[in-house]
């Protein structure tokens, strides 16, 4: 009896301690420290091209700011950068700036009190809107403020293997891939001829971000730029959503796309004749594939210069753990200046999220014609919607899509209606 009293008392003490520890309180930062200057730390992505860009940017800044030195490092290794950043926010050791912040994770980081509103800087909104133009609006949060600096996009397009197209008797310079019917016919020719085991092989796995590389680019194109959720309502329970879903369902049903997760890169390995990727992939492919690009298809065959796609953007977040936010804001502006954006383009081939990209850097696009089409495409991108429970929304979509479209269980109409209702519910929650 006495022992059970002791155990109960200990448990109660533990719970009370936890309650005390977890009660929150305080604030993630105040307007007072927005002007504070001094050394800061930043994280950038761990791909080789971005490391080169980050190093030169930091060197350029440090050379002129001896009292506000920037210490930079690659984002620590983890399953995904979102998880690493979330852990750093919780631990209170996030750096001042992270040049690898996924827009999908921004609502979560914001809710955690981890992000500084860039709109709270006097020139915050003006700077962002001037640099990114109309596209900036997609990155504003529900309260109208910017908790992320729109930084760069990788508008995704269809890459195709010219050798495989030639082998299948298709024209590698003008492939018929603009309408769903054309795309399906071309895919059938590719597989039936034996030129490729699969026509295209988007990852059929269950991760929340996979729709960004199969359903969403085509949905953006089919709708002329409609987001998955607008005005807190799912938009895809529509003719456009049905058309895109039925297109992909046919691809899986006929074995033109694989249902099993492929270990490796299906396109590079010659397992599929096409892939959906952004311009980052150009340097990754190197000389392994002789490729061409076309916009993603639509049911009616939208002209290339009117076709939308998914942006696959990565932005910059400023984190509340930062002590010298004044310097962080200055570094953020410096690193997204016309000069540094030019460096980003030059060194990584990724598209800075600034308006009139192709006319701002005409020399680059003249010298690198392969990237010009992406530069143009960067003007017509859809972003992940900036809504509550963003990642949960995508996971719910992926689970239902996987069942109905990839594995053909149930009908498309029910999938769209039920999932739209589920997502409406998720975005209405805090």
């Amino acid at each position, binding site marked *: 009896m006495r022992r059970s009293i002791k155990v109960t008392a200990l*448990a109660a003490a*533990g*719970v009370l301690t*936890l*309650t005390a520890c*977890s*009660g*929150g*309180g*305080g*604030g*993630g930062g105040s307007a007072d420290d927005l002007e504070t200057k001094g050394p800061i730390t930043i994280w950038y992505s761990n791909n080789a091209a971005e490391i080169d860009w980050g190093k030169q940017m930091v060197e350029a800044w440090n050379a002129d700011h001896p009292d506000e030195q920037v210490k930079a490092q690659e984002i620590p290794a983890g399953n*995904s950068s*979102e*998880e690493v950043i*979330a852990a750093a*926010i*919780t*631990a*209170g050791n*996030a750096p001042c700036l992270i040049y690898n912040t996924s827009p999908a994770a921004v609502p*979560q980081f914001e*809710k*955690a*009190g*981890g992000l500084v509103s860039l709109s709270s800087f006097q020139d915050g909104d003006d700077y962002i809107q001037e640099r990114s133009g109309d596209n900036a609006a997609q990155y504003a949060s529900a309260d109208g403020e910017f908790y992320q600096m729109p930084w760069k996009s990788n508008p995704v397009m269809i890459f195709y293997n010219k050798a495989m197209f030639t082998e299948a008797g298709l024209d590698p310079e003008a492939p018929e891939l603009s309408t769903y019917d054309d795309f399906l016919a071309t895919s059938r020719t590719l597989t039936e001829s034996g030129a490729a085991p699969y026509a295209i092989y988007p*990852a*059929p*796995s*269950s*991760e*929340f971000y996979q729709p960004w590389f199969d359903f969403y680019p085509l949905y953006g194109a089919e709708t002329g730029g409609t987001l998955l959720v607008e005005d807190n309502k799912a938009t895809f329970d529509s003719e456009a959503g049905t058309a895109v879903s039925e297109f992909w369902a046919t691809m899986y049903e006929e074995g033109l796309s*694989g*249902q*099993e*997760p492929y*270990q490796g890169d299906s396109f590079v390995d010659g397992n599929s004749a096409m892939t959906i990727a952004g311009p980052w992939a150009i340097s990754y492919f190197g000389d392994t594939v002789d490729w061409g690009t076309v916009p993603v298809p639509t049911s009616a065959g939208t002209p290339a210069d009117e076709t939308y796609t998914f942006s696959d953007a990565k932005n910059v977040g400023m*984190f*509340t*753990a930062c002590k010298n936010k004044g310097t962080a804001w200055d570094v953020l502006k410096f690193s997204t200046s016309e000069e540094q954006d030019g460096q980003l383009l030059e060194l990584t081939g990724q598209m800075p999220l600034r308006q009139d990209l192709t006319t701002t850097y005409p020399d680059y696009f003249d010298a690198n014609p392969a990237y010009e089409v992406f530069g143009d495409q960067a003007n017509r991108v859809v972003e992940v919607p900036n809504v509550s*429970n963003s*990642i*949960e929304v995508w*996971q719910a979509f992926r*689970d239902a899509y*996987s*069942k109905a479209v*990839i*594995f053909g*269980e149930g009908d498309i109409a029910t999938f769209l209606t039920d999932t739209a209702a589920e997502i409406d519910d998720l975005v209405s929650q805090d």
Partner: protein
Amino acid sequence: MVTITPETGTKADGADAQHARSARRRRRLLGENPLGLLLAAPYLIFVGVIFAYPLVFAVWMSFHDYFFSAPGADVEREFVGFDNFIAVATDPAVWRSFLNVGVFLIINVPLTVVLSLLLAAALNRALHAKIFLRVSFYVPYVTASVALVAVWLFLFSGPGLVNQILGPLAPDPSWLINPWLAMPTIALFVTWKGMGLFILLYLAALQAVPKELYESAATDGAGAVRTFFAVTVPGVRSATLLVLLLATITGANLFTEPYLLTNGGGPNGASTSPVLLMYQKGLEQGDPDVAAAIGVILVILVLVIALIERRAVGDEES
């Protein structure tokens, strides 16, 4: 010469009594041998910090609107009663995950017990290459799942070796993307991978079975099968209970294998385990309170299963 007066005698008695009382109090607090407590302290602290604290914290989280936040962030964490448990109970994905792990345990646990015991008994009697055989079974256990998954994918993926051998008899859809076969395939993988440890446990237990019992059985004319069921199986009952409990607990914590073999629990969530779902909800989607509720339910279910197993097998005392 020392004279003991009644007064001093009373004082001495009082001091002794006080001393005895304090010794009793110390014994109550520190036990018969305080050194034992000192030696056990590191482990007790480890258990407290690594197991007890997170468990209590998880229970607390499951009853609150909890999400990870920056230190000092002004966030409310309201008591929400059973809301998180209701969210879990009304989520078909959670039910599916528990069903999946149920299928897993039904395949994995009996298979583990039976195969481990049979192989251990065979190894115990092996005359040649005993060490080599023991190491062979143990190697998968100590090899990282990530490495072994590659081998398993080489065998069981669509164009894998097994399907090539089976030819037209290969399942369609293939093993790991077949809603009916994904979980059994994972269960087989985990059984094979974990067998080494359980064989070692049984081998240790077999050493403790008195040889006289085997001699008596032989004298009585019992055959190999009869001896196995009459002597070996009862002789390793404690080890069987341990194997059952360990297999159940590690099986209920299934995460790495479905995560790596089916890239996040496909197809259609047919291989999603509760722990994998906890990972998705808690770390990916920012709902650690819901994840904690799943965890609490899982712990309770595992405890219930463990109690049933203990009753079914019995232990030394019973």
